[in-house]
């Protein structure tokens, strides 16, 4: 009788712990999301004039289903190449983040570059991200910029924006999304003067693709930059069949652990067959009126 009670207690404890372990995956404080998955209605789009037809259809479709509030445009260039996409997004009622390209950060007169680009895109865009994975994404055959030089540039950019465009919000360059390289870089940015910039006008940008990147950057952000808001500018998986489960399992952790206000899915479209990023796509063949839809896209739009 006695050993039976003890055995029963152990089994009950194990069952309780298992059920609580599973329930711990989702926070009760998460926003409802779309179709009961914790989706964040923000997506990265690549500016490409040839895909306007497919983008127009996808913007409308996703927005009508509550799955799209804003986009991050991969590059706002000084030639105005992204203007058609920006106009489409504005007419669709979407919020826009424009990426000030890594190449433009090399400009000695970065203030003049800002003025030139803002003449095209401002005030349609009032949130700009200055750089994306700057210290890791540039091919090694090209000139590199280290984080020390970037922070010197960022201080000048911050000063220029505060003086001339006080309503513009600055998003810092996205740190690398795997391992703990990004966390160390964010810490270095804090040491190099990021903390001197007002949290009212600066948002921390970061890419998060892996659990280790999330855990490490969350620790650094808490210890050094807790007063700053966080936007995850890229996240996603390149395995289409895993897209829905990725959002269900990983988005709540990003939001709980990092308190990220927004998570931008990478990407609406990153190229068709032949592109290594094709698996990330929410849609395919946007050059035509017959776009194809990924499992996540179908889930978000109730198909």
């Amino acid at each position, binding site marked *: 009788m006695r050993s039976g009670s003890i055995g029963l207690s*152990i089994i009950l404890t194990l069952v309780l712990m*298992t059920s609580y372990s599973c329930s711990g995956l989702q926070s009760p404080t998460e926003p409802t999301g779309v179709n009961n998955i914790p989706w964040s209605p923000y997506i990265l789009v690549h500016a490409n004039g040839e895909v306007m037809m497919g983008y127009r259809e996808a913007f409308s479709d996703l927005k009508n289903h509550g799955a799209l509030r804003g986009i991050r445009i991969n590059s706002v260039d000084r030639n105005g190449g992204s203007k058609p996409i920006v106009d489409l997004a504005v007419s669709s009622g979407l919020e826009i983040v424009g990426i000030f390209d890594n190449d433009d950060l090399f400009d000695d007169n970065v203030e003049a570059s800002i003025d030139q680009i803002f003449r095209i895109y401002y005030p349609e865009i009032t949130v700009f991200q200055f750089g994306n994975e700057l210290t890791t994404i540039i091919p090694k055959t090209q000139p590199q910029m280290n984080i020390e030089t970037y922070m010197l540039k960022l201080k000048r950019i911050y000063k220029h924006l505060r003086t001339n465009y006080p309503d513009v919000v600055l998003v810092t360059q996205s740190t690398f999304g795997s391992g703990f390289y990004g966390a160390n870089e964010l810490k270095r940015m804090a040491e190099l003067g990021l903390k001197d910039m007002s949290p009212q006008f600066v948002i921390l940008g970061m890419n998060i693709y892996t659990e280790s990147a999330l855990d490490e950057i969350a620790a650094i952000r808490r210890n050094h930059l807790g007063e700053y808001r966080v936007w995850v500018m890229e996240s996603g998986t390149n395995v289409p069949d895993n897209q829905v489960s990725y959002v269900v399992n990983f988005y709540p952790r990003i939001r709980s652990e990092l308190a990220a*206000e927004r998570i931008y899915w990478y990407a609406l479209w990153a190229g068709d067959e032949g592109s290594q990023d094709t698996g990330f796509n929410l849609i395919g063949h946007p050059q035509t009126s017959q776009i194809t839809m990924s499992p996540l896209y179908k889930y978000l739009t109730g198909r």
Partner: protein
Amino acid sequence: MRKIFWIFLIAISLATLSYAQDQPEQLPPSDKKTTENKQPQKKNAKQGASYINFRFGYSGGSIDGFSYNVPTYGIGIESEWGNNHLGLSGHEIEWRKEQFNSTGIGYLLSFQFARILPGPSKHFIAKASGGLEWGVPSEMHDKTSWIYAQNGELQSYTHLYVHRNAWSPFGAHENAILQPLAELRFKSPPVPIELGIRLQYMGFELENYNLVNNTHTHESQYKLVPSFFIRLQIKM
């Protein structure tokens, strides 16, 4: 690096265990004067014992309105010295895992000294222990609550998280905690099971962001966090 670190820790724990088992019975100086006094002392000396413990625990509750459920399991080595030294009757080292669905975080290592408390009979033993726990905690106490307007616009949010106050050899090195803990355990020999309660003194940070007023507030606090556990013991 990680392998070396864990091998080092295991080696320390085994060495500690070995030291405790090899200690000779120490007699007071006065007892060494006569052999007549030695015999009664040896007769009163209790035999020490060592155990491998398997822990299954659970902590649940609410902190500042954020509910949490943290299951945990662990394995440890415990040594009962037989006789008290400096008022203590044993020590133990234990590795504990939180958040089963994560491989990168939720690993903690504790070291405690224990004292067997006087009980009503030899069939009921109570033990109090205290020590320190170090490691990379899970994110199961890290929570964020969100307040949205009717139009879906984010208005404000509150972020609660455990204060990481210690270095770790892993990742970005700033993700660990070092915290005091105390436990009270009960067992009824010869049943090899302990039931107990643990209290951890944990630091929490509360960040509030109001996007309407564009303001931010921050508050630090320390709390005693209880948990309950069962330990299966295997005598070595």
